[in-house]
């Protein structure tokens, strides 16, 4: 179980997160939603170690990993993707996936340069590993295509596959559906469900309300750096506070809601 407990952090005196806790169990899909500036990305970065919170702890199965650097958390079993896919556009899909095998198959510079037996064995492991990933994510046909020439939906799949190379227990996806077409979203949703069935805990930080409600086992709603609601998708979608903050439907807070919606609409990638 991946847990973040009582996370607080402020940037230049402005609190970004105040006492937020979130848990992710293996085989579970948890959605984290909230309007822009609610602290979703900050929470994501605290979990992956790219930001160190002021207070609070992050732990895997009770083991405190709060002080572990980002690259150490990868080897501890937390895979991640980036909101804007980061990849070398000239590298092909095979190479992109091969990079994901670093923790298991990197040998020393000397062993690699001399191509010692250990390095040769490691390369064979990479080859079989990449082959399996390509098949699992239906990417075999694109294996030798440069990532920069693929549609965004396929690039996201490649990113997910690359994060899966280390066989992480937990996979954190930063806005995986942003900019995808309806069909691509469906394809990605299918893959995410398959990952959860393979006993991987998936954390979805997403803008797309419908996708999160459709996929998640549980949803955490953030607002202004605090946890507003936590619960089952149906309950969350029906919650008046969520509707107020997120969808701006509450009559009493019509003015605030309208502003929220405006901010929201400006930031909605689907409308770009």
């Amino acid at each position, binding site marked *: 179980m991946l847990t973040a407990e009582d996370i607080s952090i402020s940037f230049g005196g402005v609190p970004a997160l105040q006492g937020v806790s979130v848990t992710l169990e293996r085989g579970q899909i948890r959605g984290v939603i909230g309007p822009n500036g609610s602290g979703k990305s900050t929470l994501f970065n605290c979990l*992956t170690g*790219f930001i160190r919170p002021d207070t609070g702890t992050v732990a895997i199965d009770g083991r405190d990993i709060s002080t572990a*650097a*980002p*690259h150490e958390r*990868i*080897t501890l079993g937390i895979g*991640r*993707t*980036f909101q804007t896919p*980061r*990849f*070398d556009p000239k*590298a092909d899909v095979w*190479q992109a996936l*091969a*990079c*994901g*095998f*670093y*923790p298991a*198959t*990197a*040998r*020393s*510079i000397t062993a*690699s*340069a*001399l*191509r010692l037996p250990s*390095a040769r064995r*490691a*390369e064979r492991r*990479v080859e079989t590993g990449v082959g399996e990933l390509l098949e699992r994510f239906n990417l075999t046909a694109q294996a030798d*295509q440069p990532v920069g*020439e*693929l*549609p*965004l*939906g396929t690039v996201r799949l490649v990113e997910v596959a*690359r*994060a899966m190379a*280390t066989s992480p227990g937990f996979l954190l996806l930063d806005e995986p559906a942003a900019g995808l*077409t309806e069909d*691509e979203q469906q394809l990605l949703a299918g893959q995410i469900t398959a990952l959860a069935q393979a006993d991987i805990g998936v954390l979805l930080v997403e803008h797309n309300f419908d996708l999160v409600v459709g996929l998640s086992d549980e949803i955490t709603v953030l607002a202004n750096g605090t946890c507003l609601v936590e619960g089952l998708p149906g309950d969350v979608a029906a919650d008046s506070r969520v509707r107020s903050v997120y969808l701006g439907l509450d009559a009493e807070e019509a003015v605030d809601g309208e502003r929220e919606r405006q901010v929201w609409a400006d930031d909605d990638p689907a409308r770009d």
Partner: protein
Amino acid sequence: MPEVLQRLAARQTTALLLILGVAVYTVFFAAVPARLDLSISTAVYALLALSVALIYGQAGVLSVAQAGFAAVGAYATAILTTRWDIPPLISLFAAILLPALLGFLLSRVVGSLSHLSLAVATLVFGEIVTIVLREGGTLTGGYVGLSGIPGLAFAPDLLAYHLLAWGVVIVVVILCSNLITTTRGRAYQTIGHDPLRAEADGINVPKSTALLFGCSAGLAGLAGWLYAHYMTFLAPESLPASLSITVVLMVVVGGRRHIAGAIVGTILLVALQNAMPTEESQGLLYGAVLVLVLIAAPDGLVGLVNWWRDRRRRAARPIIPEPTAQEV
């Protein structure tokens, strides 16, 4: 041809072509001292260029200190062989390890700087090396430098030294080509492209970069060792900071992402340099070649050749559907 050999040949194309080239050159110019002399200094340049191709071409860290590391290696072997009569083959270790250690430490100290600041820091480091060598008193010979560095007993004449120098280059090319096609090498390519992405692959970026920087500096030290025992004389300005910039140019012109780029760039610029009448016109030449290449082939000459080959190969394949505007 068995698959293993095919893969080997594909990986080591550069080394194979280089062996062929050196063989042809040797057959033609074995009896021409001036040509052999030119070839030996080209090999020293090539080693320095390869050291840049490793750290800049792979990990994206622009080092303008390579001549400084070469000077450290050259002085290390010169001091050990002239003052303590240590055999050159033993002092070779010092000539590689001392700059490697300095490179590792330098990278750990300045590694977190932005690209440009880092390049400036390495340039300053190179200048500091020159100053230390000049002010080093009797140990480094001060302004006068060190003379009477022994030659290599196993490479007594020009022809043998030419073969030795290029033999070293070929071994280094083989090792580099091995490295860049492994997980470790791909990790460096990821660091060079995007350090944040590399972190997400589980790579300890500062430590990995410092280790490669150490290797690159050690390689420059090896070039210095070859230089010192060939020239048998060293002065603080023998391996000046401007040489660091020249070898970076060679790598950029040849194509920094490719091991072959370092070799192609070195040979091209040395050939052009020799065709120029005066030394003053060299600056003009370097500037002109660099601008031309950056405009016509940002990935260098080898990059241009590869792009051409890929395009022809792709033309023979079914067309990939273009992503629609919505997808982009």
